[in-house]
């Protein structure tokens, strides 16, 4: 029993959903995603009991590409993030009807298949293939089921596709080059490789281009806000909840260990850029009129902090980054869902058109409030654990990083509370607002429960990822 089963299950799920037809599609998809979740939990359990759930098989003998899936703690953490969020996302989408939903849900499952593959792949080319595969479904999801003016959307989505693909193609060159050196794409072989300083620097930059666009780190973020706004909320959740994490995970898994010296050399610039992203994102978010765009920029700020954590090249930085990735994955999905819930009732995403909802819907208000607090990293939520660890690692590198990065807890509170005030508080809104339905409530409660539980007891996740991070750090440091 190894991790390939998860991939197969998701792939089969995607096909089954496609065949199930529009009526059943959502249910089938939900079923399979839950199955994947259960399976990955089972595998996690057997991993903790010391079983080997990785898989290596041969695929192409020239050029030498192997079907290698490495499932260590880190990878499994990300896989769980994916398989846990997918059902939630599907569940959240039950409220809105999609025309020919079979394609839609098939694409959703296919995307989560591709992303899981990206997290697991331990062979450069295989990894790259999954990386690109994840791009196709989101492109169509955003293009066909997106909202807003079609022409505008087309432009935004096409830009997103070309931009990200462009970035990753340079990564492809890097891989080709590494292959010409190592004669294999296997992760460990690439780790073993010792490159000259110049080579490393170019390789690093090639990777950086791919990841900086995906994550995104400013100034490569220009695709983000518009796509988030135009994509259907499910797409936005997939993008912000999981896909961004692909970039960050890849930084930890591929970029840093393969080109450690370059990473050390550029550390100040990289951390600087990331932190600039934190501040920039927060400030831009202050004045957003569109709820989804505001959340998009908030997530720009958060991933900036995560990236900064990654580039500190310290145990804390990396583990904090992972924690923050997971926490942010959940909270941002929750927030976008809250936006969607409001949209379902009021058909608007413009903050100005909202307000005074609180008195109409106590349940929703409390859940939304908790999510907002989580995203401003209130102690007791998992986000705090992540943010604390990351900031701590930054302060170890240089106290000023921590101070500047720490502004996020002020600015974050500013724009989030402002948003909450304008959206929920104030004189009772004239329009009626039905309180959350059961499925909506389940989704939100699940997310909140997760955040609170691990906020108080993060140990399981920390212990899960710590060994693999140590391993990676040893590779980086010699």
């Amino acid at each position, binding site marked *: 029993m190894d991790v390939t089963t998860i991939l197969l299950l998701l792939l089969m799920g995607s096909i089954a959903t496609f065949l199930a037809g529009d009526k059943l599609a959502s249910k089938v998809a939900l079923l399979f995603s839950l199955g994947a979740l259960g399976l990955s939990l089972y595998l996690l359990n057997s991993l903790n009991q010391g079983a080997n759930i990785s898989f290596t098989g041969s695929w192409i003998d020239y050029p030498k590409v192997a079907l290698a899936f490495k499932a260590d703690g880190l990878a499994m953490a990300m896989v769980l993030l994916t398989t846990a969020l997918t059902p939630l996302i599907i569940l959240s989408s039950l409220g809105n009807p999609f025309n020919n939903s079979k394609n839609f849900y098939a694409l959703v499952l296919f995307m989560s298949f591709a992303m899981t593959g990206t997290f697991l792949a331990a062979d450069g080319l295989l990894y790259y293939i999954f990386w690109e595969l994840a791009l196709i479904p989101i492109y169509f999801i955003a293009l066909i089921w997106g909202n807003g003016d079609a022409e505008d959307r087309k432009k935004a989505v096409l830009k997103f596709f070309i931009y990200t693909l462009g970035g990753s193609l340079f990564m492809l060159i890097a891989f080709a080059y590494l292959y010409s050196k190592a004669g294999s794409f296997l992760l460990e072989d690439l780790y073993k490789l010792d490159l000259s300083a110049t080579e490393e620097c170019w390789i690093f930059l090639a990777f950086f281009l791919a990841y900086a666009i995906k994550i995104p780190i400013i100034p490569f973020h220009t695709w983000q806000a518009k796509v988030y706004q135009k994509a259907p909320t499910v797409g936005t959740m997939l993008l912000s909840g999981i896909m961004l994490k692909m970039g960050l995970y890849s930084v930890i898994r591929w970029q840093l260990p393969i080109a450690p010296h370059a990473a050390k050399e550029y550390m100040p610039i990289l951390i600087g850029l990331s932190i600039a992203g934190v501040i920039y994102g927060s400030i*831009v978010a202050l*004045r*957003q009129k569109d709820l989804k765009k505001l959340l998009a920029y908030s997530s720009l700020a958060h991933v900036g902090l995560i990236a900064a954590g990654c580039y500190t090249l*310290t145990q804390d930085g990396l583990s904090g980054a992972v924690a923050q990735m997971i926490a942010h994955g959940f909270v941002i999905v929750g927030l976008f869902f809250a936006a969607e819930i409001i949209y379902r009732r009021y058909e608007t995403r413009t903050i100005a058109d909202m307000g005074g909802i609180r008195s109409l819907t106590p349940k929703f208000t409390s859940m939304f409030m908790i999510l907002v607090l989580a995203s401003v990293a209130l102690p007791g939520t998992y986000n705090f654990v992540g943010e604390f*660890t990351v900031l701590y690692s930054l302060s*170890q590198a240089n106290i000023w990083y921590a101070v500047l990065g720490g502004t996020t807890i002020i600015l974050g509170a500013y724009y989030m509370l402002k948003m909450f005030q304008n959206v929920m508080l104030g004189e009772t809104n004239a329009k009626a607002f039905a309180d959350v339905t059961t499925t909506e409530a389940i989704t939100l409660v699940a997310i909140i429960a997760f955040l609170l539980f691990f906020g108080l007891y993060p140990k399981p996740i920390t212990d899960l990822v710590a060994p693999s991070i140590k391993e990676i750090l040893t590779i980086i440091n010699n």
Partner: protein
Amino acid sequence: METNLALLLLLSPFVGFLFNVFFGKKVSRTVSGAIGTLTVIVSFLLSICFFAQLNQNGKPFEISLFDWISVHNFKLDFGILLDQLSLLWLLFVTGIGSLIHLYSISYMHDDENMHKFFAYLNLFVFFMITLVVGNNLLVMFIGWEGVGLCSYLLIGFWYKNQDYNDAAKKAFIMNRVGDLGFLIGMFVIAALFSTLNYTELKTAIGHGGANAVMLGLAALCLFIGATGKSAQLPLYTWLPDAMAGPTPVSALIHAATMVTAGIFMVTRMNFLFDLTPEIQNIIAVVGALTALIAASIGLLQNDIKKVLAYSTVSQLGLMFLALGFGAYNVAVFHVITHAFFKACLFLGSGSVIHGLHGEQDMRNMGGLRKAMPITFWTMMISTLAIAGIFPFAGFWSKDEILMVAFEHNKVLYVIASIASIMTAFYMFRLMYLTFFREFRGTEEQKHHLHESPSLITIPLIVLAILAVIGGAINLPGSAWLNHFLEPILAAKHEEHALGTHEFMLMGIALAGAIVGILWANAKYIKQGFVPKADAEITGFNKTIYNKYYVDELYTFLIVNPINGLANFFRTTLEPALGKVVYSLGTAANGLATQGKKLQNGNIGLYLFAFVIGVCAIITYLFITHIAQ
């Protein structure tokens, strides 16, 4: 057993919170209120038990519940520490907390969201307890941010009024500024000693050898945190606005308990601050200035709660003054007495507002002495206490502070004294305008004038009594408190042998207070002066009345630039960055349009290009061939 009790002590209010969240709406308001109150009383009783036990065996009780956050160089557990300091705080937090809960049952009875109110109040008590009983800084930080959250929720309790929401937001964000300081401070300490646990820290720092600069930095950052929570310069402006919340909230959170968290934290970390005299000086100066400025603003405020708010700020300033001189026990002493009489004052003002159906402007009050005697007398006692009249509680604690100041720094002593004279003045101004001479409100208000129900008055009476006798816990001579706190404080605090110049100082203080009172009396009783309408206020008075325009200054210096930047980024920079990417595409398209001209369908041209190509290649090969 003890562990369970400790847990109960901690969680009991949380249970109340959960109950009120999930069932509050179902049960009647009284029930939800009663539950809320009981849970706090439970904690109070438990604290008494622990207190008694501690008094017997004298050894603090510490347990670690579970591992929480771990970073490479240390593990943080979620632990409870019940020692002298935390128990002292627990006693008055839960004690006053219970009283105010009791009070609120009647005060909030007409509010449809009463169950929410009690939920928040319980949550606050829970977080406050967490803050106090945590055995390391990070647990304190949970409580620290938690109480901030509750104050946000309670200030904005009447969420339909956006001004209140703004006030709430302001409070939260300004606290966050402090919290960042707190975080950084923790980081520095963790980096230095790789622990945040108090006891371990105490020993670690005791060994010394740590880089003085870093220690100073840590202390400074922690103090910044304190200025946020305890409303000191420059972050004090949120506290007066926080009066937007219901009056019990102002009493509990913004007078008695939460705002003293800063003092608690500094006292907790006294072993750190003792090593950094420069920072202590900063603290002292900041405290003194805060005391003076806040008091001076208080002189001219007309909103009864605003006056009390500024007096709170200035009292807190005095406490920090004491902290700055390393007289932690004195500060704590004043914290406790202040908690008594300030809570009483707020509740009293609440009772007045309640009586006048929400009227808060003292210009429309007056002559309430007859109508609500209990409120009047209790408030009068507390006023005497805060003014520092012998033998009320405030006299002893404030006097101690002044003595300490006198010993260390005459200038600050003078400032502090002026501040306390002002205090005496504006407090009596408040009393006179509210309770004396004839009623200035509307006719139909006059009809409904009545003493508040007993649920309101009982807490008042209790607190008033405490305000009278509270000084007893640390009378010069007996000084129980000092002895009690000795285990906590690293540096021994020398006793005041009651000598002549101590008595002289007492006399001066008393005289100052009386001066202030007479001044007020002359102005508001003899002349019967009533403050002018806002429009007519002019000159320096106007500046003071508008709080020296500090808020406007902050808006101008910080808020506006940030918003301007936000606008600039959103409207200019973002599109520009986007264009950069698009421009590549447009460039390619431009090339294409040019290219289409070349592809003009003319066979001759195609053939020509062909031949040119051939010639070019051949010649190139030839040239290189010759070159070889």
